[in-house]
C-alpha cells in the first residue's frame, strides 16, 4: 500500500473529508461514554438536545461560537502564512484588557462610536502583543511557537494582578472582577431573553472580511504565498518580513476581538475566567475548517455545539463535561488525518 499524490481534489472530497473525520471522532468518543457506564444513545441524544434542541440551546451555542469565530480566524490567518501563533489565549485577554480600560470610564461616546472604538483598541492591543514574538522571529530567529505560548501565561498573570489589585471592582463583594463596562460600550442583544449579542454578527462580518482579504486582495495573496513557499515568495519580490508582520497584526487583532465579545457582550465585565481556553480551542476550530475563513464560522458553531451539548449531557447522564475537550481534540487529530485523503490517494502495491 502506498500514497500517491492527487493532482486535483474535487470540492465534494474537500468538504466531505472533515465531516467524515468529525463523525469518526464522535464515534470514537463513544467508547469513553461506555467506559463511564452511561447509556450511549441517551448520552448522544442529550448532547444533541443541549447543543441545538431548543431556541435557548441554539442561542447559547451561537453565543459560545462567537469568541471561537474570532480565535479561529486568528489561527486560520496566521497558519496560512506559517506563522505559528499559539498565543490566541493571551491575545484574547490583551483585547479584554483594552476593552475594559476603554469601556469602564477612559472615554464615553455614543454607542455607535463607542463599540468601534473598543474593538479597535482591543485589536491594537492584541496585534501589538503578537508583534513582539513576530519581530523576535524575524530579527533574531526566536521560535514563535514557544514565545507565543509563554506569553499566554504572562498575560494571564497580569490580568490576575489587575483584577486582585488596581482594577478590582469595590462593589464586587470581594470577587476578582473589574468594574462593569458602561452601557454605551455593551454589545446590544440580538434576540430577546437570550444571551446572543451583536458580537456574533461582528464575527460573521469579520469572517467575510478576512475571506475577501485572503482571496481577492494583494495582501492576502502575499500571505498565502509566504506560507506556501517562502523562497519562491522572496524570488517573486514579495516583501516577506512586512507580510509576516501584517499577518501578525491581523491575527493578533482578530484574537483580541474575542476578548471584546466576552467582556462587552457575554459577561459585561472582565473576570479571570472569561475564556475557558478559547484561544487554544481556536486552533482546533481553524484546523477543522481547513484554515478557510468562511468554514471557520461553521466549525466554530460546531465546536461550540459540542461544548454546550456536553454540558447538558453531563447533567443528564452524569459524565464529566471534559468529554467536550476530548471530543474537540480527537476531531482535530481526525481532521488532520483526513487532510491526507484530500492530498493523496491510497494505491495498493
Amino acid at each position: 500500500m502506498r500514497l500517491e499524490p492527487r493532482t486535483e481534489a474535487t470540492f465534494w472530497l474537500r468538504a466531505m473529508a472533515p465531516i467524515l473525520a468529525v463523525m469518526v471522532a464522535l464515534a470514537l468518543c463513544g467508547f469513553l461514554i461506555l467506559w463511564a457506564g452511561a447509556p450511549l444513545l441517551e448520552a448522544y441524544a442529550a448532547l444533541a438536545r443541549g447543543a441545538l434542541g431548543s431556541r435557548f440551546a441554539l442561542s447559547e451555542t451561537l453565543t459560545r461560537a462567537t469568541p471561537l469565530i474570532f480565535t479561529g480566524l486568528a489561527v486560520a490567518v496566521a497558519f496560512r502564512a506559517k506563522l505559528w501563533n499559539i498565543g490566541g489565549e493571551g491575545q484574547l485577554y490583551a483585547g479584554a484588557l483594552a476593552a475594559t480600560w476603554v469601556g469602564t470610564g477612559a472615554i464615553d461616546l455614543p454607542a455607535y462610536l463607542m463599540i468601534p472604538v473598543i474593538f479597535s483598541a482591543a485589536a491594537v492591543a492584541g496585534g501589538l502583543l503578537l508583534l513582539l514574538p513576530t519581530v523576535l522571529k524575524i530579527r533574531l530567529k526566536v521560535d514563535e511557537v514557544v514565545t507565543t505560548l509563554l506569553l499566554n501565561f504572562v498575560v494571564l498573570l497580569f490580568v490576575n494582578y489587575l483584577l486582585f489589585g488596581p482594577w478590582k471592582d469595590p462593589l464586587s463583594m470581594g470577587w476578582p472582577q473589574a468594574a462593569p463596562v458602561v452601557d454605551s460600550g455593551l454589545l446590544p442583544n440580538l434576540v430577546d431573553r437570550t444571551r446572543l449579542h451583536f458580537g456574533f454578527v461582528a464575527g460573521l462580518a469579520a469572517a467575510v472580511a478576512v475571506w475577501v482579504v485572503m482571496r481577492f486582495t494583494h495582501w492576502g495573496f502575499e500571505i498565502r504565498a509566504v506560507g506556501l513557499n517562502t523562497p519562491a515568495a522572496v524570488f517573486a519580490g514579495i516583501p516577506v518580513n512586512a507580510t509576516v508582520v501584517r499577518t501578525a497584526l491581523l491575527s493578533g487583532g482578530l484574537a483580541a476581538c474575542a476578548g471584546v465579545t466576552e467582556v462587552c457582550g457575554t459577561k459585561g465585565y472582565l473576570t479571570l475566567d472569561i475564556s475557558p481556553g478559547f484561544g487554544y480551542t481556536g486552533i482546533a476550530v481553524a484546523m477543522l475548517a481547513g484554515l478557510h475563513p468562511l468554514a471557520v464560522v461553521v466549525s466554530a458553531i460546531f465546536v461550540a455545539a459540542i461544548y454546550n451539548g456536553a454540558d447538558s449531557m453531563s447533567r443528564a447522564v452524569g459524565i464529566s463535561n471534559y468529554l467536550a475537550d476530548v471530543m474537540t481534540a480527537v476531531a482535530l487529530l481526525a481532521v488532520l488525518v483526513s487532510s491526507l485523503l484530500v492530498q493523496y490517494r491510497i494505491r495498493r502495491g
Partner: protein
Amino acid sequence: MFVSVGFWAATVRMATPLIFGTIGELICERAGVLNLGIEGIMTFGAMIAWMWVYQGGDLWTAVAVAAGCGAAWGLLHAIFSVYLGLSQHVTGIGITLLASSLSYFSFRLLLPDVSTPPKIQPFESIAIPGLSEIPVLGEALFTQTALTYLALATVPLCWYVLYRTPLGLAVRMVGENPMAAASQGLDVLAIRAGAVCTGSALMSMGGAFLTISVFDAFYFEMINGRGWICIALVIFASWRPGKALFGALLFAAFDALQIRVQQASSTLIPYQFFLMLPYVLSIVALIIMSRKAAYPKALLVPFRRGER
C-alpha cells in the same frame, strides 16, 4: 540565602521535572521531530502515576506505568508526524489537547465527587551515605528522592548514547540528514518513531515526579507551562544534554530564588510579577541563545520514502 541548604535542595528538586522534560524533548528534536505534545504528556504522566498509587499500586510500578503511557502517546505522535508526515506543530498541539483533557476526564470519572484532592504516600527522600554529609552542596544534592537521582542519571546516559554509540549516531543522523541516513540502510521512520517514544516516556516521568514525589496529589493545571519551558530550555541548551542539565538547574535556581524573594517582599511587589518570572526568563533565554542556535537541520521536515 545562597549558602542555605534549603535553597539548593529546592533548586535540585524543582529542576527534576524540567530535566526529564528537557532531555525527553531533546531526544525527539535530535531525531528531527518537534514534540509539542510535551505539556499534555506530562499532565497524563502526573495523573496516571498518581492514580496508580491511589488505587493501591506500588510507587515504582507507577513510574513504569507513566513511562509506558508516555511512550504510547509518543507512538501516536510518531504515527501522525513521522509515518504520515503530518504537520508536527498541529500534531503536537492536538496531542497536548487530547492528553490533558483525557487526564482530567479520567480523573473526574474515577473520582467523581471529591472537592479536596485525596493524598497518597509519595517517594521518601534518600540520603546517600557519605556524600550527603558534605556541607551544603552534598546535603542539597544527595538527600533527594529516588526519581531525582534517576533524572540526574538520565543526563550522562543520554549524552553517552547520543555521542558514543551507533544508535545515537543514527538518531542524530536522521535529525540532520535523513536522506543520507536512508542511503546507509537506516530505517529513518523507525528511528524517529523510537526517539519520539523514548522522549515522550521521559516527559511522562517528569509529570509523574510532580504527583508521586514532590507533591502527593493531582491538581488540575498542575503542569502549568512546565512543558513549554522545557522546549525553550532545549533551544537554550543548543540541543546538548549537559547544557540542558545546566539550563534546568539555572532555571530552577531562579524559580527557587523567586519564591524566597516573593515571601520576603510580598508587600512591595505583587506576587503575580514573581510568578511571571519563569516565563519571562525563558523568553529572555531564547532571545540570548537563538541567534547562534544550531537547529537539527531536518527538524520539522517530514521524511517520505522515495520522495525528495
